């Protein structure tokens, strides 16, 4: 795969879920391509399928129809182990609820994904902690951190693994306005430095406005 080839390609992706009212079509023939270094905002009303799209893009979920290529890998029909390997090496997700490992220290949390991907770079980790203002918090455990600090740890963990695609699910949704702005600044700066692509789900028009491209999902279709 060439460096400038899209890191994420959706071709006619559809997804539905069974519910008490019958089958709910969440994504309907979504086509999408994101190139390295590109920052993309994904907006849409609640229940429009944003998170589902993000999960499929991150190899956390599978499409019912269509194909998904992530960093050159066709995710269709992949085994759980192979999809886990793609998640480990090529994509990283920043969750709204941070999803840090509570029993690991901040330092170990930051290094964790890089370690399991086999490319832990202590210098990069130190640098990330420094840039995100976490240097004094490295020995602490997540429960001792504020929400903003925990989200910074989640960002550092994702960046430290040097993924080709960064997926962020409302990464500032739990933070106050000022902190959210700070965290977003740091995230964009780090993405720019690493050259990874960023797909960010948000409800905030202001945050979406800071992305290079904006996509809107409505009733399962990109508009």
């Amino acid at each position: 795969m060439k460096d400038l080839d899209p890191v994420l390609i959706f071709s006619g992706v559809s997804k539905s879920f069974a519910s008490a009212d019958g089958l709910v079509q969440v994504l309907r023939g979504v086509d999408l391509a994101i190139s390295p270094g590109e920052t993309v905002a994904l907006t849409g009303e609640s229940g429009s399928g944003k998170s589902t799209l993000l999960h499929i893009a991150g190899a956390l979920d599978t499409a019912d129809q269509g194909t998904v290529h992530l960093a050159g890998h066709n995710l269709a029909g992949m085994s759980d182990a192979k999809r886990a390997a793609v998640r480990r090496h090529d994509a990283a997700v920043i969750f709204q609820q941070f999803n840090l490992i509570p029993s690991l220290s901040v330092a170990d949390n930051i290094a964790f994904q890089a370690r399991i991907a086999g490319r832990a770079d202590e210098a990069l980790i130190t640098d990330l902690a420094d840039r995100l203002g976490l240097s004094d918090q490295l020995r602490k455990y997540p429960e001792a951190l504020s929400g903003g600090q925990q989200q910074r740890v989640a960002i550092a963990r994702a960046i430290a693994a040097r993924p080709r695609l960064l997926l962020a699910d409302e990464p500032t949704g739990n933070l106050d306005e000022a902190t959210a702005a700070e965290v977003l600044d740091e995230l964009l700066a780090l993405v720019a430095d690493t050259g990874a692509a960023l797909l960010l789900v948000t409800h905030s028009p202001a945050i979406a406005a800071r992305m290079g491209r904006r996509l809107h999902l409505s009733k399962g279709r990109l508009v």
Partner: protein
Amino acid sequence: MNRACLAALLSHWIRNPLQLFAFLAGLALATGLWSGVQAINAEARASYDAAAATLGDGQFDQIVPATGDAISQEDFVTLRRAGWLVSPVLEGQINGVRILGFDPLSSPIGFGVSEETQTGDLSAFLNGDQLFANAETAGRFQTGIRVVINPAVASGIAVGEIGMVQRLLNRSYLSRLFVQPDQPLQRPALADIAPHLRLKAASQTADVGELTDSFHLNLTAFGLLSFAVGIFIVYSTIGLAFEQRRGMVRTLRALGISLPRLITLMFIEVLLLALVGACLGIFLGYIVAAMLLPDVAVTLRGLYGADVAGTLQFRASWWGSGMAIAILGSLAAAAAKLWQIASMPILASAQPRAWAMRSGRARGVQAILAATSLLSAAGLAWFGTGLMAGFALLGCFLIGAALTVPLLMHPFLAFAAGAARTPVARWFWADTRQQLPGLGLALMALMLAISANVGVSTMVSSFRMTFVAFLDQRLAPELYVEVANAAQANAIETQLPDSGIVVLPLLAVDAQIAKQPTRLFGVRVGPTYRENWVFLDAEPDAWDRVSAGTAAVANEQLARRASLWVGDSVALGEELTVTLAAIVADYGNPRGQLVVGEALFRRLHPEVAPRQFGLRTDDPASLRNTLVSDLGLADSAITDQSALKAISLQVFDRTFTVTAALNVLTLIVAGFAMLMSLLTLADLRVPQLAPVWALGITRLKLGQLELLRTGVFAVMVCIIALPVGLGMAWVLLAIINVEAFGWRLPMFLFPGEYFRLFLLSLLAAIAAASWPSVRLMRLPPARLLKVFANER
């Protein structure tokens, strides 16, 4: 990757040391009690094997007297001259130690001193005045003869050259003759040259291992019960730890750990923890076994005459079984949670499921399991036969009863919540019901421990009451004497009645009756027997018919084994049949017995002279003096009735020391299970209690309510445990005891004892709840406020 992931999984335990402690301590206690019991069993079995090797039991045919216990030197010489290759053995006792004399030149076995007799200096063995014994036995007796320490000689036995042993025991006769496996073809039949001797096949020799099997099975059952209680703690802890890590599991999978790898690593994690817990448990088991073994040794000696070494060795058989059961138990406890994780979608909610939210469906499954177990128990009680069926019945009954604990409590708590008037009371009962799923396992463990205590104490106390009454009826004569020769016997029979002494000769011989090895007794029927013996079942004129020689009395063991009861006929010879007129209880005796009148016995066995007598007198001390000074009996040949009763009761009490100790240990483990459950649940409780605190209930009040809640649980557990314990006692007395020992005990109730036990259990539960309650009372408000701070 594996290292980082395993480190992340293990970090949970480091960050939650209390859970780690609960897991390791629970497993160590479970394994400790199990492996302790196994260590005792292994030590006993090793002693039996050593005894068999030393005594040759079960290995070679033996020639023994048809009656009595002596073979003359002349008989031995006659047999050798006739071509029989036999080797003489003499047995006696000094200070409770079996002294065995043998001829090393002809003996087919080495009696544990093969080294000395085959490869060592044989002439020194033959000529030297020395006995061989292990160190423990050597310390138990003094003979004036040099004792050479030899660890290969079985415990409780000393061996030496036969001539020297004859001099030591002051006997000229022999006890038995070993028959060499290879015999000349042309030799006369034993009946032709020594009709008063009989050949005893190797397979007929008493196997002490078989005799004690049921005792060891009882210990094993107790060990298993303790293990089950301990493994509840492990299951509970693993359940909580896995629940708390659902979020971590989701994160790990989202970050790229595949499900099979994650399951494998979690399996390894449990395995590592299990190994540590098992090692601690085996160490604990060693301590438990070392503490209990001396009492077990006394029990086995008292009940079965089996000598067991009082010192413990670190044998692979028991620590291996401890290790295996600890690891298998832990993995079994983790299996359900691993399965849940394996079937959990990657995007499933990461929120720990509140224990209280366990659905009614789970209760339904539990109810079905409980009903199945109880129905199986009923089926086994009705149709089952054999000791294993008895234990299976007990197991099903206890499992079924344990499973019903939360099911019985649930409706009661729902009713209490509905009936409560004040808001706090309503909240208290509703919250108590909400804690039920989380505490369910600990409550089941407590119920099992209390019911085991009720059951076993009922059995032991019933046994003791029966046993004391039994001793009073069976040990009626004030003195028992053993005569050394016919002259002494004659003097007792002729001289003592003139002084108003009632003489009761005890004639006995080993016989085969109703295809059962039996001790046949001949008794002089008189007031002593008529007034003191209480029959389990009898015809009205039983003693008259025994006295007339037309009927016999069987002990319960013989009656049950031979399927005989009152009114049945028993053949005593080819042409002689008597009716069974009564069945008598004979507690603690493993052998079958049949009692006939003295006249009939003497007709059947004219060669048997009484060697023992029971003597009835109003003045035992004076009679004792007469026996020693006038009749020349050795003082050691006279046994006082009260001393005999005291010894019997002492043996009895020590018999159940082990049971009592295991009982207390099980209760301690259950209390610990309660403590650990409450402590590990404490953190989960904070979000539930914070709103109540915020609404105006003080931390002190919350702490007090937590204590009260535990008290309520403990009282309910005790109420359920009482019928379960009594059911257990019934199974032990009416089924397992009959299958194991051949006799049934009456069941008595001891309300005072149960009340004391319930108070103790209540105190144990309150004590277990104290620490978590005090922690709650001192919980910083900041911790409670954090619950609201995390709300988004």
